[in-house]
């Protein structure tokens, strides 16, 4: 398993990778910029000229130091934040807001504390026009997909952090989104729970065929999960390098290819 782990960043037109050459760009980011205007009137560039193409069913991670704009980029794909310049399109349609097939899982504390697990998931069906009983039935189905059938009646504060994130994933899946956008979803969990949920996520990804964009601080998490790792640099946020991860799954941390890539990403991050 020896291969050259580091590749040059490809141009956006050919930047689709992972699963064979025939796949077209599903999420397309062209010259996206983000500028935050301060109250004093000053403008802070957060993201500068980002080009990226993500294929359907691809698993892409964004990695980078705090403040590199990776969460902002994710929110822009989610339609939760405007693009200051450039454009982002999903399946050819320009993103103008949430609800265009993007499901989002946030870091933590994003479940509605006044709703039980099953009602939190059922909330995802609010716009579906389904009858209440049917929403409830499907919510329970999704809870069992994430292994939480037994906790359906619990409120978020009665669940562990890992359970809460499982519910968050189930809720995001309620819309049957084509894209799952995940903002450090396992960042606040302990190591064991984290590894468990990573495996769970890969299982769901395989079973449901989603395009996943995953923001993380952890190199090994990105390596365990992704087809490609997009490394962002700060001031202003921009894509520094893209690492394809052509390692077979399940990936082992002891694998030499894994280690070589880890080292390469670490070197790039720390310079």
């Amino acid at each position, binding site marked *: 398993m020896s291969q050259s782990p580091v590749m040059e960043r490809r141009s956006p037109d050919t930047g689709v990778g992972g699963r064979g050459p025939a796949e077209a760009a599903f999420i397309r980011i062209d010259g996206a910029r983000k500028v935050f205007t301060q109250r004093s009137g000053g403008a802070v560039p957060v993201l500068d000229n980002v080009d990226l193409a993500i294929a359907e069913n691809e698993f892409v991670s964004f990695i980078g130091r705090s403040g590199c704009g990776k969460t902002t980029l994710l*929110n822009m794909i*989610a339609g*939760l934040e405007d693009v200051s310049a450039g454009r982002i399109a999903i399946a050819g349609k320009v993103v103008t807001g*949430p*609800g265009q097939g*993007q*499901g*989002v899982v*946030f870091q933590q*504390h*994003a*479940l*509605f*504390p*006044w*709703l039980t697990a099953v009602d939190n998931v059922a*909330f*995802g069906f*609010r*716009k579906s026009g389904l009858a209440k009983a049917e929403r409830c039935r499907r919510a329970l189905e999704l809870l069992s997909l994430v292994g939480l059938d037994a906790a359906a009646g619990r*409120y*978020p*504060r009665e669940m562990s952090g890992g359970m809460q994130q499982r519910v968050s994933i189930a809720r*995001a899946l*309620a*819309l049957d989104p084509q894209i799952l956008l995940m903002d450090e979803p396992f960042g606040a969990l302990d190591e064991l729970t984290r590894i468990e949920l990573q495996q769970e996520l890969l299982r769901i990804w395989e079973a449901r065929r989603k395009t996943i964009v995953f923001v993380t601080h952890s190199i090994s998490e990105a390596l365990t999960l992704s087809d490609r790792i997009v490394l962002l640099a700060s001031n202003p946020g921009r894509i520094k390098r893209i690492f394809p991860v052509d390692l077979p799954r399940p990936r082992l941390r002891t694998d030499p290819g894994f280690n070589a890539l880890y080292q390469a990403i670490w070197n790039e991050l720390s310079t």
Partner: protein
Amino acid sequence: MKPLSRLSAASDLTLGLIGAFLAVAAWEISARTGLVDPAIFPSPSLAIRAAAERLTAETVADNLFWSLLRVFSGFLLGALAGAAVGIAAGWYRGFGALARPLIELLRPIPPLAWIPLAIIWFGLGEPSKFFIIFLGAFFPVVTAAYQGMRSIDPMLLKAAQTFGLSGVPLLLRVAVPAAAPDLATGVRIGWGLSFGVLVAAELIAADRGLGYMIINERNTGGSVGVIVVGILLIGALNLITDAAIGAAIKRWIGRWHGA
């Protein structure tokens, strides 16, 4: 962990009851031994006997009814108006900027300071009391509702937006429930203030109600015992209603909020 906390909760209650018993006993003894003059501060047993002689159940029930009617209606409208204004001010920036300075300007005025104006505007009848009690509930609730709205975790709103919620549905389905714990605190404080304001208003300007009952006893040179019993009755009524509201709040948000 659990048995220990339950044990200490039980022993806290026991200690509290012992404390209350000791105070009543000390009161009874000091009145009987002549340590305090029974004419100005009668013993509990004497006070109850005097009240039983001078007050019919009908009188007490009638005054109780009027006090409760006033405080409930004034509080209900004050709390509803406070919640509506506070939620709107927290949600709609423009309205908040418009209304908040006015609210902050009026809020420090004690509701009782409005009494002379209330009498001029509404006369001595029910509307003036209603107005004062309304104010007692309005300001704590409006403040708490506003604070609650301003401190909603933006993550919850974002999460709801990813499901296509916006505008009024986002406000009603997400923002208001998220602000409910703060709102509940305001409601409870508002109830206490409404109740306090009620009795004061009845002392000053009323011809029925518990406040009137005790001040009338004083003005007609009746029994101090009736006044003492009346005071305790007002305290007990506030205690019970506050506990009822507390229990209702706990039912409402206790399980998910852990209040």
